[in-house]
């Protein structure tokens, strides 16, 4: 067992879950959206265990140990070992909530969605979700002081057009919507976008989208996947197409399943995992480089995603987490038992979370090995985005 991996189980039926601005949201199987005050919940656990710091960093503030101010401390062996000891001293725990009990624990009246959403995401305090007939939105944070999205976004039905299968945050203020053989669309959330809100980005088949700054991977489970470059045009003040490439030609193989993270594309194949770096300005790609050399079965792979702590690969009967310290962590389950899973690579405080939703429980894993790893030499997992600590994006301060 990896001493830096911790697990909390909330025993209650959950269809989906996500974490945002100090709250854990649970979408129950009857479509109630419950919100638990997560910081309060974890603080109590930390106090009971006499390890506030370990619990806080593991479950509430994943960026804490990455902070440039603490880098000199982590470089000193004695302090580093002391912190590692505290971080590993977080015990796995399980909480059983009876029927109705979970609702009592929740901080707000639980709203109920009209039906189970196909996909959902949170962006700027707003929950966006897909139904058969289009895209919907609702305020997630009540009484918010700063209205960070235009008023029209706050109305519930944003786009009456089906059937989209996945939703992702795209470049600028747009959402990317995959529509299988109908291609890929961008929905502009900005005020300026009101005249041309829905734009078709490509005709090629799209099952899911992986974003890479302004460019994106349009992945397909049944046909070829493509990578689309986009570049900011300073004069026109818009993102314009900058190139398109069949991803199988980038990796020189056709049997792979692809995902992207940061400016890197990954190919999962029977040979392992290869990576390719992408340069936006020149729309160019490096040669494939193997980052994982054990055989994987792409035919059994359901989906994959990259995070700062590693890669998460969903197979039919287990989740394989390849960690940034080059170890791996396997979470087995009976075939077909895993209802949903999520990671939060664009979150600030919860980048180390992995949520697994089962029919009778939610398992929340926290991966904490990454702050102790030199970020530039990582092969697996994206580099921690240090621009979070600056206002102007100085990556090199660390």
């Amino acid at each position, binding site marked *: 067992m990896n001493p830096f991996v911790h697990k909390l189980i909330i025993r209650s039926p959950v*269809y989906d879950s996500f974490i945002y601005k100090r709250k854990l949201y649970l979408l129950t*199987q009857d479509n109630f959206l419950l919100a638990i005050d997560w910081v309060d919940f974890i603080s109590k656990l930390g106090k009971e265990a006499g390890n506030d710091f370990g619990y806080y960093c593991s479950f509430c503030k994943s960026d804490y140990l990455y902070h440039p101010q603490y880098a000199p401390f982590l470089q000193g062996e004695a302090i580093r070992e002391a912190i590692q000891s505290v971080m590993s001293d977080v015990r796995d725990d399980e909480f059983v909530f009876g029927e109705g009990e979970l609702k009592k624990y929740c901080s707000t009246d639980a709203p109920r969605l009209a*039906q*189970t959403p*196909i*996909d959902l995401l949170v962006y700027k305090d707003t929950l966006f979700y897909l*139904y*058969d007939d289009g895209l919907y939105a609702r305020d997630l944070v009540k009484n918010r002081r700063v209205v960070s999205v235009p008023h029209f976004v706050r109305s519930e039905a944003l786009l009456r057009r089906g*059937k989209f*299968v*996945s939703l992702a945050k795209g470049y600028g203020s747009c959402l990317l919507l995959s*529509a*299988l*053989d*109908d291609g890929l669309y961008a929905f502009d959330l900005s005020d300026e976008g009101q005249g041309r809100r829905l734009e078709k980005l490509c005709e090629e*088949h799209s*099952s*899911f989208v992986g974003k890479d700054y302004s460019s994106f991977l349009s992945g397909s*489970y*049944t*046909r070829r996947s493509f990578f689309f470059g986009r570049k900011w045009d300073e004069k026109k003040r818009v993102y314009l197409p900058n190139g398109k490439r069949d991803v199988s030609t980038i990796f020189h193989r056709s049997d792979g399943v692809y995902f992207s993270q940061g400016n890197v594309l990954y190919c999962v194949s029977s040979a392992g995992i290869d990576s390719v770096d992408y340069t936006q300005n020149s729309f160019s790609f490096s040669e494939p480089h193997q980052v994982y050399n054990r055989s994987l079965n792409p035919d*059994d792979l*359901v*989906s994959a995603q990259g995070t700062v702590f590693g890669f998460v690969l969903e197979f*039919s009967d287990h989740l394989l987490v390849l960690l940034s310290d080059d170890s791996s962590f396997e979470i087995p389950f009976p*075939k*077909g*038992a*895993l*209802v*949903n899973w999520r990671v939060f690579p664009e979150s600030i405080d919860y980048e180390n979370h992995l949520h697994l939703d089962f*029919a009778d429980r939610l398992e929340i894993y926290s991966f904490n090995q990454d702050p102790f790893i030199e970020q530039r030499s990582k092969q697996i997992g994206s580099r921690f985005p240090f621009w979070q600590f600056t206002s102007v994006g100085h990556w090199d301060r660390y």
Partner: protein
Amino acid sequence: MADVYNVGGTFLSAFNFYYTFVNYHHGKPSANKSVWTVSLNDEMALFDDTASCGLINNHECKRVFNINLKGNKPCVLGETIRNGSFRELLICQFEAGSGVLSSSWHGYPADYMDSKRERPSEQDIQVFIRKGLKDSDARKMRKAQRIR
């Protein structure tokens, strides 16, 4: 049990709807064409099962989906080699006929991972769940992911 039906024929189903076993969706799969791999008896049984749910008794409904679950796992109903790749298909779609088939229904295995037109609606998925489909497989069907 020997099939009492034949490909190309039209038969009256148990719920008094005419059903045609169209040639196009039987035999070998080809590009952009899915074919049944279950027997004609089983195909008709699936149509009857769909009618028994009351879904095709609605005159406005021209397209309905169904699934065959063994335990709670979907059974393979057909196959396709669409876009160069072979895939087993787990759901089927029945359509009210048009043109020469206007008085009858026909059906074919549907590729929910590939085609927007062949994706079941949330209403269809709720029917599948009531029949025993697991939430995990329902999620994959909604998101056009592979079910194993």
